[in-house]
Each structure stands twice: as C-alpha cells, then as structure tokens.
C-alpha cells in the first residue's frame, strides 16, 4: 500500500502536465493573433472605401484634405452615355411614361455578349425573376419563399412582353415597386445587355412565327 502511494505521488506531476497539454483544445477563434512585422503587414496607404467617416474626420482635423471617391457625375472612359431621364418624384409617373421612348443602344449581341448577358441576368435577376424568367425564382418559390411580393413574370406575361425597353431600363435603374435600383450593381452597358437578353428570351418563347430568322437581334 505504501509503495503504491509512493508511486502515485511520483506520477501526479506527469498527469497534471498531460492534462494541461490536452486542455489546450481549439475554441472559436475571435482574435486575429499576433503579427511578426506589423509595419510590413498593415497597409500605410488608404484603400478605396476602406475608411470610416470618423477616420476621415480625424484626418481633416490634422489638415489632410483628400477624397477617395470620384466627383459626382464622373464617367468612366468607354462606357455608354448615361440615361438622362431622372427619377420620378413620389406619386408621379411622368418620367416613367416618358422612358418608353428611349431605345436600347445595343441592337445586336454576339455569342460572347449573350453568354455574358445571361451570366449577368442569372447573378442579379434570376434570384427573383427565375432562371427561366417565369417570375418564380428561389426567393419567391411560388409564394413559399421569403420574398412577399410576386416578381414580374418576364416571359409569358403580355404586360412585360409588350413593355418598351426604355421603360424596363427605367425600372432597373431606379427600381419599381418592391424591386430596388440595380444601378450600383450593373453599369449602363450591363443594364442594357440584360434587357436585350430578356427581350431575346421573350422573342424566343413566342410560338412559331419567325423561326427562320434565328439570329437574336434584340
């Protein structure tokens, strides 16, 4: 008995050490840890949009004036000319009606452009309007999805099949009903491409008629 006790006494430190090692198991990591050379790891430059307004104010107090956003109305080189119809005031539809007259500057898309237009549609529009343009995307799911309003049925509804492209462009640019504005996600050219894609799909779904001319024009 005495010998056993003696042995146990000798073992206890080892046991404690082992337990200590094992207990260092992984938990949720909420900290970033340490950096070897912070002045090489953290950028000294101010990256675009990476500053909060408070940080900007702090610099302003030091007398450092700068703008990391372009001046309002700045246009990138090589983009399409912007849509010059402004957004309607609440309760007014004058500009929405006026937008009917605007023509799509993209009259023809080649295969690569159609593929790109389809990609843009699927990324930005398909989520609500459905991959088949049937107004039944994963967010609506026939009324079971989280989106409470039915998205427009782009193919199969006369209202949208006869809607002029300019009016569609107005809705994509400024939003309509519960649809938000997509002007921040799609540039001018991309918005017209998506509309041309929708019109091409509407054209393709029409029964028989002009199937001989299979080149997608709009």
């Amino acid at each position, binding site marked *: 008995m005495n010998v056993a006790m003696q042995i146990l006494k000798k073992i206890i430190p080892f046991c404690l050490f082992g337990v200590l090692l094992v207990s260092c198991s992984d938990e949720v990591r909420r900290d*970033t840890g340490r950096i070897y050379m912070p002045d090489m790891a953290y950028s000294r430059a101010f990256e675009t949009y990476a500053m909060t307004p408070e940080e900007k104010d702090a610099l302003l107090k030091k007398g450092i004036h700068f703008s990391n956003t372009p001046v309002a109305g700045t246009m990138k080189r090589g983009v399409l000319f912007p849509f010059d119809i402004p957004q309607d005031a609440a309760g007014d539809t004058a500009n929405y009606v006026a937008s009917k007259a605007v023509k799509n500057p993209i009259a023809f898309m080649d295969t690569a452009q159609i593929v790109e237009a389809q990609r843009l549609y699927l990324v930005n529009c398909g989520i609500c309007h459905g991959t088949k343009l049937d107004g039944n995307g994963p967010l609506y799911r026939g009324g079971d999805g989280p989106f409470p309003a039915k998205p427009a049925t782009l193919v199969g509804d006369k209202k949208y099949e006869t809607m002029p492209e300019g009016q569609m462009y107005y809705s994509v640019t400024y939003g309509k009903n519960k649809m*938000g504005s997509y002007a*921040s996600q799609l540039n001018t050219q991309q918005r017209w491409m998506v509309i041309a894609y929708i019109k091409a799909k509407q054209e393709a779904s029409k029964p028989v008629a002009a199937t001989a001319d299979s080149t997608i024009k709009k």
Partner: protein
Amino acid sequence: MIFHIYTLIVYMHHYRLSAFRISSIFLFTAFFLFFGNFSMAQDGKALFQSDCASCHNPIKQVTGPALKGVTARVPDQKLLHAWIRNNAAVLASGNKYFNDLYIQFGKTPMNTFPQLTDPEIDAILKYIETYPEPGPGAKGPNNGPSSQVEESDNSLLYGILTLILAVIMLVLLQVNSNLKKLSDDKSGVPSSEPIPFYRNKVYITFLVLVLFVVGGYYVVQAAIGLGRQQNYQPEQPIFFSHKVHPGTNQISCLYCHGGAWDSKMAGVPSLNVCMNCHAAINDYKGEPLYRENGKEVDGTGEIQKLYSYTGYDPKSGKYTEPGKQIVWIKIHNLPDHVYFNHSQHIRAGKVQCQTCHGNITQMNEVKQFAELSMGWCINCHRTTKINFPDSAGNGNKFYSIYERFHQNLATGAMDSVTVENIGGTECQKCHY
C-alpha cells in the same frame, strides 16, 4: 371441349373488357368531380399570384396594403368589385375610404382588371381571407444547440490513452526496480542506497527530453503561426448568415461580392444591395440560427438592426432617417507586401469561391477556411493546371503566345501546363 373452353375465354375476355370500361368511366367521372372542385379551389391562388401578388401580400404590406380582412374593411361587396376592376372610376366618384388609402400609399396607382368576372374576384377574395395568419409558433422545431456542440474530437481520447500508457510504464519501472532490489537482497548482493526519483538521472534525462520535444513543437508552431489567422471567426455587427443567403436562398456570391469578377477586391456590398431584398423581407421565418457559442439568434431582430443602420421604416416603406455605415470586420487579411487579385483567379483562372473560402454556404458565422500562407499559395500554383488552348483552339487564347509549351505538348514532353510553368511561383508575381 376445346371449342367450349375457347368460347369461355373469349367470353371472359369480353366480360373483363366491359368491366374495365365501366370502371374506367366511373373513375373518370370521379376524377372529374374531384379535380373539378380542386381546380376551382385553386383558382383563387392562381389568379391572386398572376394578377395581384406583384403588389399585394395577404398578410404583409408590400407596394399595396395587406389584403386579409379586406371584406370586413369594405363590407359593400359591389363597391369592392368595382374597385378591383377599375379603381380609377371609384377614386373619381369621390369615395372617401379609397381616396384616403390612395393618398396614404403615396398616390401609387393600382392597375385595372376589367377582365375579372365576379366568380373570379370572389375566388381571389376567398383565397385572401382563408390565408393562414402568421402564428407565434411559426418557428421550426427546436433542435437546440446540442447538435452543434457534439463534435467528434479524438485528441482528448489520444491524450488519455497516452497518459494511461505512461502511467503503466512508470508503474512497471518501479515494480522492476523493487523486484531487482528484493532479488538482490535475497542473493546477498549489497544494494545501493535507493535514489529518489528527482535525482534519478534516467528520469531527469527523460523529463528534459520530453520538455524539449513538446516545448520545441509549440515554439515552432507559434512562430509559424505568427501573422496567420486560420479559423479566425470574429463576431460581426449584424449576424449575417451565409448559410441562409447563398445557402438556403441560393443567392449568387457575385450578387453581393460583384467586385470579385471585375477587380482585385471582392468587396463588401453597400447597404442598398441589402435593401434590394430587405425593403420587402422584414422578418426571418427559416430554421433557428445559432451563434458559435450556442446562443440562439433572433433573425428578425438582426433585420431590424439593418433597418436601424439604413434609417428605413418598414411600416411606411420609407427612409425616414439618414443612413449610417456598418463597420464589418474584415476576416481575410493578407499582408500589405502580398498582391492578390480576385478577378484574375475567378475569371481567368476559373477558381470556385469555395476552393479558398471553404464551404461558405454552411457557415452561419464566416470563418477563415484557408491558411492564406505562402506555402498554401505556392502549393496550389504548383498543382493547378491552367486552361491551356489545345490543338482545336479550346481554352484561354491568351496562352497561345507560349510557343515552347505548345511544342512540348505536341511532342509529348509535357502533359499539361501548370501555373508554375507560366511563372506562377516567381517572387515578383505577388511581391512587388
């Protein structure tokens, strides 16, 4: 006899046929009776979805008011029908209730539906009035966080096993020395004075060795891990679940992180992108959400937080206060001396987001999946084959300038071209 049997068979056949016919007619009528009714009951839903649902929801205010209870609010059935068919005429007639409603909803005109018949309107109204009320018990089954906590972690098991083995070894060593002492005593060999374990050279050497190996391991690991943030999982200002958004709701990664396609940075979306959907979606009804520590998250409350940042009032559907910035915490940090470009990888290289960001559609709280160490980058550059154009001209045309590789591929000296071959492991590719 044979003839007799034959007639019997023919007779039976005939009989069976007629029986089949009768039963089929019967079934057909039953089918019609049943599904005739069924389609009538469905009419309301179908009509509602095709004509009304783009602006109305039975229990929620969307572009127009929530419609459940409309028959109680407008008891005059004729007036309601007239309103649905041609609301402009009702407004012009000066009806106070509808004119007030029109002003309340910002004079957004309702479409006219002159083609709807009385039974059709009644079917729509019936569908609206029988639409289930949102109950308080709408939440899914409470599975609790227990299912998340239980993870198979073998390290504890191995630790215990190692400890037990170490204890057995020590016991056996002690037993051995005691037995040796006993046998020495018996055979009359003069035994040396017993040395306590802390002065026993064998023990001390053993302990120092163990400390050196274990300590060295941890020191090296810590030194390698300096500046690395694998598994970093900060708590964000809003509990934005990637499991719900790109997972359950199948939103494309590029819907919010569109910059990944066009530029160096994937980018965090501005609040108007959130509001594209959340102007209308103002509650969460999916499966219960849990933080990493097992605490349940109120999804609807998190959407309310978004509204407090954007200054949006979901009741009126208007922005009533100025917006504020959400300071999200950046998870994936590369040191400033490394250049990384998203569009180069996902657009030219066709790398999937999940390759580096892990199974993001299963993450409620995003954590850094990859090590983002230089070794990790280099390994991928060494093994990844580029989309080199073959003899038929398929593949990335940019690589047609690599004439030597084309020759090598043609002669069979190379079987594929990796990122390393085109300079993907040169220092200046990423450090300049």
